[in-house]
């Protein structure tokens, strides 16, 4: 048998050795670091009665918006099986009720804690990173235990988790292991949240740990890598078409210029006089934010405002007014389709329809959410403080791309608004991206 020449053999062997080394590291990184499994003592405490602990767990589950993904409307609470579309395929949420076969029946509080910390089941199966475990690993042990006790108090529901339909090989454990070695540092030290946090610390914990705001408001890369838990700089949401705004930009959210009372109302009801939470954010208000205590909602605001103050705030330069030909068409459509609710001067109707004059939502340089609102219409969320919200009809069949562009260009340039013209091409692209 002919021998391979050395100049082939040596590089081959070196690269094979390197590959093996890397594979070994990925294996160790994901399954070998047993020693780093958090060993914090359980706090299934004797200081609280069970009922108090369960109620605290429910509050935390709401603050963490666990319910939105782990429940399907009309099905038992937390029984999972909700389909979540990702650019890589569809993922189904797991059943967190104490059902022994399909839920967490056989788990312990420690198993649950490890799942939150490491994104891994007791059998070592790696979880798909739609579960935001880069955030849940920041959850304190006592909160994890309270969550666990609430989950265990729910009626068991027999609901098997449907198989994910991720494109091969993305759903395999090997692919997940490589992905985690790239994007998830299970060994990074987490400081336990302070016993008596300041508003700023409590806000940071709510935004970065429980609330996992960066999961939507932070930018993922092409492989869907976790954004940093503090990345709130805005991102286009893949598959859903909505733009999750930069929470620290005053031009995008009014985080600094809008008064605190208005902001609290926006968090608790999804509504304030100049905008309504819609699309995915309506869901967050519906399942999560409306239940926050006044103190927690304020803490979130303190955190966001403090961080916003440290940013360089760029305000949009006033855009030139649109062409008269566009404004003419836009004005006509506005009179016939919009003015009844939003008012002749865009003044809105207090408590019912938001004002368009001076609204930041109307004047975003990226008109994606605005166009989607007109195409799809929608109701704000039903909340405790605002159980029967008003709504807007979908216009996707009534108005064509040119008409929507014209009416939006009109409202973006009237009553003191000074945002750029929207083009029919922009409307067309947004319409095409969401027509399924």
């Amino acid at each position, binding site marked *: 048998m002919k021998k391979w020449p050395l100049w082939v053999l040596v590089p081959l062997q070196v690269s094979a050795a390197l590959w093996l080394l890397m594979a070994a590291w990925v294996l160790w990184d994901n399954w070998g670091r047993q020693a780093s499994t958090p060993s914090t003592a359980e706090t299934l405490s004797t200081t609280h009665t069970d009922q108090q602990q369960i109620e605290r767990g429910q509050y935390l589950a709401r603050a963490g918006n666990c319910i939105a993904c782990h429940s399907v409307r009309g099905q038992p609470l937390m029984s999972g099986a909700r389909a979540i579309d990702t650019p890589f395929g569809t993922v189904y949420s797991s059943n967190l009720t104490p059902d022994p076969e399909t839920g967490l029946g056989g788990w312990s509080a420690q198993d649950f804690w490890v799942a939150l910390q490491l994104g891994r089941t007791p059998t070592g199966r790696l979880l798909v990173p739609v579960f935001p475990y880069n955030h849940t690993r920041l959850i304190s042990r006592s909160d994890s235990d309270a969550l666990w006790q609430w989950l265990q108090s729910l009626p068991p529901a027999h609901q098997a988790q449907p198989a994910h339909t991720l494109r091969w090989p993305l759903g395999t454990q090997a692919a997940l292991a490589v992905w985690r070695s790239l994007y998830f540092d299970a060994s990074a030290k987490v400081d336990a949240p302070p016993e008596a946090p300041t508003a700023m610390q409590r806000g940071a914990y709510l935004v970065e740990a429980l609330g996992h705001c960066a999961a939507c408001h932070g930018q993922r890369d092409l492989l869907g890598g976790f954004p940093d838990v503090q990345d709130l700089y805005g991102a286009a949401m893949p598959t859903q078409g909505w733009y999750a705004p930069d929470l620290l930009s005053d031009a995008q959210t009014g985080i600094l210029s809008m008064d605190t009372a208005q902001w609290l109302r926006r968090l608790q009801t999804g509504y304030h006089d100049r905008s309504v939470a819609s699309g995915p954010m309506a869901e967050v208000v519906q399942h999560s934010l409306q239940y926050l205590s006044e103190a927690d909602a304020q803490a979130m605001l303190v955190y966001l405002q403090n961080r916003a103050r440290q940013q360089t705030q760029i305000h949009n330069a006033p855009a030139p007014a649109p062409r008269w030909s566009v404004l003419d068409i836009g004005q006509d459509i506005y009179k016939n389709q919009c003015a009844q609710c939003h008012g002749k001067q865009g003044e809105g109707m207090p408590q019912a329809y938001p004002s368009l004059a001076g609204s930041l939502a109307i004047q975003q340089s990226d008109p994606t959410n605005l166009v989607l609102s007109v195409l799809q219409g929608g109701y704000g*969320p039903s909340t405790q403080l605002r159980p029967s919200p008003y709504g807007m009809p979908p216009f996707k069949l009534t108005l064509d791309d040119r008409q929507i562009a014209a009416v939006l260009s009109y409202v973006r340039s009237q009553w003191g608004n000074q945002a750029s013209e929207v083009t029919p091409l922009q409307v067309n692209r947004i319409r095409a991206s969401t027509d*399924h």
Partner: protein
Amino acid sequence: MLQTLFRQTLPLWIVLLCASAAPAAPISTPENMAERVRACTACHGEQGRAAPDGYYPRLAGKPAGYLYHQLLNFAEGRRRYGSMAQLVQPLSDDYLLRMAQHFASLDIPYPAPSREAPRISPQDLERGRQLAVHGNPARQLPACTACHGAALMGTEPNVPALLGLPLDYLTAQLGAWQTGERRAHAPDCMAAIVRRMTPGDIISVASWLSMQPVPAATHARTLQQGLLLDDSLRCGSAPELNPQPHKKGQP
């Protein structure tokens, strides 16, 4: 004399004055539901209307239970239409129920049936009438009238009227039931029935139904005890159609 008369009847004059002024004030319910459902009426209109993607049915006067179940069906994925799902998802069950009750309480005359000549033969139309009124026991097809009422104007609180609907809406719904695109709470009796129908049955029944005039009394009727379904067909969306199971210890 006149002055005395005026003085004595002063209260009456005041009442008359108020009565004539009253209609000028806006008539609004305390909840202002008409305003709150504007997002619905923009498409559905007062009597339903056609659009490029299909026909939006009228909502006014339909039984509240039926309307509520449809809203839940959209929210929970048993009926699929993107715009409806997006609209109802953020709303609570309680609010959806109040919307359903609002539309159920409205009384708006139905439009006259289409004057168009039927596109099917008189024999097929007669077959449609037979199926609607008598069913076909040999094929386990109950008559439409068994549940939707002898007048086909629905039965309270969960079964809708079948008259006053256009042909394209009726065929689309029956077709959707056959393919599973439209569903109701399990056990889904309507799906079981429609799956026993042939495409010919569907077009015959839908054609006949769409040509019937709507009676003057448009509200759904109360359930006639004689019209109950037997045990082979159970309706999750309208449990009152099945005889109540005997309780233990009772004859």
